[in-house]
């Protein structure tokens, strides 16, 4: 039973990873790629680590999986935010069909 639930968790996580990487490949702009890639891939990897925990139970491998899960959950949004801020401050253009850029109008980019 544990093995079946673990395999289902692996399947969900790998599907999210695949679609996140497909968005990274297909979207037109750095900001679109960022929002497709980081959210989907973070969720998928967290599901893979939950699947590893469920599949093996609370032994050394499962505890390490929980440690890695907490670390990724904290650091991945931080890295994505730093990349988007750096990209905007190094004057990378938005996609030509983008409609609004609040950060340029009234944010830190004004100074």
């Amino acid at each position, binding site marked *: 039973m544990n*093995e079946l639930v*673990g*395999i289902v968790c*692996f*399947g969900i*996580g*790998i599907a999210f*990873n*695949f679609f*996140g*990487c*497909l968005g*990274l*490949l297909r979207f037109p702009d*750095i900001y679109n*790629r*960022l929002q497709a*890639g*980081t959210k989907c*891939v*973070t969720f*998928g*990897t967290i599901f*893979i*680590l939950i*699947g*590893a925990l469920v*599949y*093996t139970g609370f032994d*050394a*491998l499962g505890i*390490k*999986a929980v*440690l*890695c899960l907490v*670390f*990724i959950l904290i*650091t*991945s949004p*931080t*890295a*994505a935010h*730093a*990349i988007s*801020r*750096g*990209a905007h*401050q*190094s004057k*990378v253009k938005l996609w030509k069909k983008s409609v609004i850029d609040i950060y340029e109008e009234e944010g830190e980019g004004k100074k």
Partner: protein
Amino acid sequence: MTTVFQVYIGVLFLCCFMCLYRIGRGPTAPDRTVAIDILGIVVVGFCALMAVVTGKDFYMNIAITWALLSFIGTIALAKYLEGRGFDE
């Protein structure tokens, strides 16, 4: 059971090759930085899957170390894109 894991490993390899294509072809520097970040996270998941498939725990040690080093590298590249020093 084994066939399911073989399919999973194949799909993760495909994800890694998509990220490598974006690292090679990305038109600007932030595209490449995003692709490096995402490649690091995908490899962490791949290491967790390999730990379960082979039953050896040292793959999880590799995953934890890879997550740490990938985060530090991504933050350094983002600071470089922003045009600042590392201590600001």
